[in-house]
């Protein structure tokens, strides 16, 4: 859990300057780090298969499967994360706060709708949408826009709309594709408005978190005589390190969950109109696959699960999974992240379960 501590400490330091004592527990932290290092070293030794007693061979196999699944997620997500980091870097360099202010609608509703559709212009999936949203908000975009963008962009972008159509038009028809798009926009806008106007949005805390990061960013690079590409890459470095740590943690958690809790155990759990929705939402979180390809995975559930449950998988999965939930903590205060997760889970479940019940599936 040391990454959370890490984050807590940094936030705490900022808060500390306002007179609140940071809750640091050095002994516990040192123990956690030592345990983490010991686990990794043990895993590396058993996984390497060098001088490992034959009793451990099944564990070696397990570990290698874990590493294969981890690399599957890590390698698959890395190009998309880098794309998001570069988009964010480009926004940093080329979009001035003035220009942004002029483009964004004044009303909260307008900003939320714009945020939910912005993915059509910046085609990023969940790994890329968070750095991009963070940068937009640093440039002065309202929180409603940021939240709507983070939730909707992984689905509302050309690549994902095409892949969904390719996968589903022949099986469940265009209406299913329209449902995925419509429901995503609806939920993203609803949550953005809800959080934007209530205290859960915590606008000041977000501003504090963002300005703290901004401070980190300005340590190196200010060489304005650099070429455009070097500038773009220079800004990307810090952002990459901040986001990729969550990719590593999220990837390892998802791989560990998959190795310990077999996916079939989940899919065997429930077929009813209610349970099937919950099961596929849990599966979406555990699998942590990119929204550009989740349609093809969902395709293998057609026939086993009701369309409402498939929709829950395809709408909730891109909004929240293990790695994106962790990444969100870089952009929003933890309170907002928790509210975001609960609200999107609740809304997706409520709507898709109703669909299943009304549809009689």
């Amino acid at each position, binding site marked *: 859990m040391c990454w959370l501590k890490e984050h807590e400490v940094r936030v705490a330091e900022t808060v500390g300057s306002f007179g609140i004592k940071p809750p640091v527990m050095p002994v516990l932290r040192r123990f956690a780090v030592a345990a983490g290092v010991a686990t990794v070293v043990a895993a590396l030794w058993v996984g390497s298969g060098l001088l490992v007693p034959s009793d451990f061979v*099944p564990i070696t196999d397990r570990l290698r499967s874990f590493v294969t699944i981890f690399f599957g997620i890590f390698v698959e997500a890395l190009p998309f994360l880098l794309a998001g980091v570069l988009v964010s870097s480009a926004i940093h360099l080329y979009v001035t706060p003035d220009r942004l202010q002029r483009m964004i609608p004044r009303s909260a509703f307008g900003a939320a709708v714009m945020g939910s559709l912005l993915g059509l212009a910046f085609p990023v999936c969940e790994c890329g949408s968070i750095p991009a949203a963070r940068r937009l908000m640093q440039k002065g975009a309202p929180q409603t826009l940021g939240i709507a963008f983070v939730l909707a962009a992984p689905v509302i972008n050309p690549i994902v709309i095409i892949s969904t159509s390719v996968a589903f038009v022949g099986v469940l028809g265009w209406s299913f594709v329209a449902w995925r798009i419509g429901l995503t926009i609806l939920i993203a806008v609803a949550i953005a408005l809800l959080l934007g106007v209530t205290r859960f949005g915590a606008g000041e805390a977000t501003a504090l978190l963002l300005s703290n990061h901004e401070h980190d960013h300005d340590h*190196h690079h200010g060489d304005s005589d650099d070429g455009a590409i070097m500038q773009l890459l220079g800004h990307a470095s810090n952002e990459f390190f901040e986001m990729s740590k969550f990719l590593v943690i999220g990837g390892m958690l998802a791989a560990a969950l998959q190795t310990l809790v077999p996916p079939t155990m989940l899919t065997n759990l429930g077929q009813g109109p209610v349970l099937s929705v919950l099961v596929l939402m849990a599966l979406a979180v555990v699998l942590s696959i990119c929204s550009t390809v989740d349609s093809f995975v969902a395709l293998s559930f057609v026939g086993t699960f009701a369309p409402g449950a498939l929709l829950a998988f395809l709408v909730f999965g891109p909004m929240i999974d293990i790695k994106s939930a962790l990444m969100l903590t870089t952009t929003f205060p933890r309170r907002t992240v928790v509210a975001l997760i609960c609200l999107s889970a609740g809304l997706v479940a409520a709507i898709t379960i109703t669909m299943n019940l009304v549809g009689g599936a």
Partner: protein
Amino acid sequence: MNSTVEAEQLPINWPALIETVLLFLTGVLLLSKALRGVLAFYIHPRYTTLVIIAAVVLVGIGLSRMRAVFAERPEPLRGRGTVYALLLIPILFGTLIPAQPLGSDTLMSRVTLGSTLGGVQRGDLPSDDTASWSLLDWAIATSTDRTPVLGSPVRVEGFVFQPNAADTTGVYVARYVVSCCAADASGVGLPLIGAEASGLSNDSWIRVEGELTQTTIGGTQQPAILVRSVTPISQPVNPYLYPR
């Protein structure tokens, strides 16, 4: 950069140095995996180009970061240790643990035995020539009620899988189906019937020839291969099957 000070006289900016090394190593690791052909163990081959581009971008970011290795005012290293340690993990995993595709040990958790191995698979069948069908094609045929007549020729490649569950016995020839990356892999396979099927060890790759028959597993009838011959083969370049 301050042009009046030689870079070598400046103190080392440790965060920049460490980040440069991590970026280079991650990029090189991905490139070497692509060159050795083991990327196919992790992801669908259509993403290989994308990963190579990502590796080049990582090296590019590393290059731009390298210029800050000597700086007048070094950045503080405090508080960054965890991030660096975390990014070291994939590098260590990738270099010290031999790359291995998913095998029989995880298959048990990714299939539903009792019914057909592979659950529901969808898609078009390539042709009526069942001898050219892959294990995925057989799974598609059985889960969409297009199972051919008994006695149809079977010729498939896969690895040996012997479930160790209490209620299931027997030997399967199996294969993983991957639509994106190893995280979404699901297993497909057919049980082997006949004397040729005994004495095979888990995870060894085989080509099985025979004809379609039926067997009862977990109380339900399901298709199986009446084995005529089993030939050991080497692991294919692409160990997984991919939906069309």
